[in-house]
């Protein structure tokens, strides 16, 4: 990777070299061309914008975390311009990075006092995070060097070429782990549950009307945040609607009721449990729970 450290100064040369390489592609090059990344790889020797940035950052010869991001942005933009001038099709990644850097640079240059309050993280934070990513990528490159310079089996060090007897310890180990055990257990319990299932009967769905009525009936009692799972009725008979249908219809009904202003819903994060309670308009609001509807 050291050969690319001089970019972008030597960029044109590199490109030229690469093109010449194309004329007589060795098996290795051919392999690269076959891969999805062929375009990027063979275009400029970099795998992606982050790799380009790392090479550029190294020219600043300071700790990556103290790098001047504005200067880095400048260099990267020049690099991209140069590439476009040479009419190379650049992968979208490179252009996205270019516009992001241009934007970051402009925000960094803006004095703090003139920055509008936004929800976006401070540009210094973004710069630090970029510097961290570069540092990490560099660490991984060093790791590659460290790993590949270790004595490798059958390249640098060799084990017994002619083992006398295959010394394999008699094993009473079994080839199964706890996960297998759990799955085996659940498979059977599920089979047991489904054994009473009668496929000739139509699978009923829990109707939205019923769900709404049921939720309205429960509403007066829903003073505390209650999980959707608890609000949705349990299946009553084997042939009736399935649990999933109860949950889905109750969810739909709860959305309607929330829209009508009777119910409050909250979910702390994606995939988290959904909670609902009666709208607390008249109760004091300082109970700590958020009132997002």
């Amino acid at each position, binding site marked *: 990777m050291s050969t690319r450290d001089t970019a972008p100064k030597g960029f044109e040369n590199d490109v030229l070299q690469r093109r010449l390489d194309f004329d007589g592609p060795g098996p290795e090059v051919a392999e690269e061309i076959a891969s999805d990344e062929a375009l990027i790889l063979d275009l400029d020797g970099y795998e992606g914008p982050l790799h380009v940035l790392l090479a550029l950052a190294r020219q600043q010869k300071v700790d990556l975390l103290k790098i001047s991001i504005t200067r880095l942005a400048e260099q990267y933009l020049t690099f991209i311009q140069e590439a476009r001038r040479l009419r190379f099709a650049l992968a979208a990644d490179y252009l996205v990075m270019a516009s992001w850097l241009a934007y970051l640079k402009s925000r960094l240059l803006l004095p703090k006092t003139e920055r509008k309050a936004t929800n976006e993280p401070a540009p210094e934070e973004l710069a630090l995070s970029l510097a961290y990513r570069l540092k990490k990528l560099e660490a991984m490159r060093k790791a590659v060097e460290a790993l590949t310079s270790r004595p490798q089996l059958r390249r640098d060090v060799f084990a017994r*070429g*002619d083992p006398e007897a295959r*010394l394999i310890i*008699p094993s009473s180990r*079994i080839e199964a782990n706890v*996960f297998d055990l*759990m799955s*085996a*257990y659940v498979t059977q319990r599920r089979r047991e549950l489904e054994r009473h299932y009668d496929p000739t009967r139509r699978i009923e769905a829990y109707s939205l009307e019923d769900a709404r009525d049921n939720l309205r009936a429960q509403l007066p009692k829903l003073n505390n945040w209650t999980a959707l799972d608890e609000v949705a009725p349990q299946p009553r008979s084997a042939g009736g609607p399935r649990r999933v249908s109860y949950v889905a219809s109750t969810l739909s009904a709860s959305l309607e009721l929330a829209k009508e202003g009777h119910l409050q819903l909250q979910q702390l994060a994606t995939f988290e449990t959904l909670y609902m309670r009666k709208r607390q308009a008249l109760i004091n609001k300082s109970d700590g729970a958020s009132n997002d509807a």
Partner: protein
Amino acid sequence: MTPETLERAIEALLFAADGPLSASEIAYRLPEGAEVGKALAALRARYSGRGVSLEIINDRWQFRTAPDLAYLMVEEREEPRRLSKAALETLAIIAYHQPVTRAEIESVRGVGLSRGTLDVLHEMNLIKLRGRRRTPGRPVTYGTTDYFLEQFSLPSLADLPGAAEMRAAGLLDINVPADFMVPDPSNGQTTEDPLLLEEMEETEFAQDFFEKD
């Protein structure tokens, strides 16, 4: 090449070679003029009396283990054993529902237990007889062994993953009733009598035949 380096080089060559090497084969891989014969003799002396010795077989040199240690090299190979699906499933039920009778196992599985299944699990020392249920017929009950815990790296029976973990692992979907329970096998059940010592030895197989109704 110093004599030490030469000796080291030959040591490595002989070790890594996939068969005996002649002196000339060794010399061929070394710088010209290396005193291979001398180094081989020195190496041979160095290994004399060790667990490995340098032998000449048909004018070729080879490291062999010392003849008096041949008994260590006797080979028996046993692959990690695979449990059949039926055996794994039966084991799982015994693990979670222990102490459990044969009839109970069959009722969860929904199919009869072939006689071999429990035998295999016994043989592998994964299950054991635990006692007798205090119910008519006093059927024997099965449970898992300490070796079972060892095999599955479980500190104790209480560490068998429960319903929450199964849900987290995506094994239980929403159609499984919310009241789906996984028994906690670490709760000792006192509804059974201990087995008598002689019963543990004897009844195992007899019981297996009887219980199948």
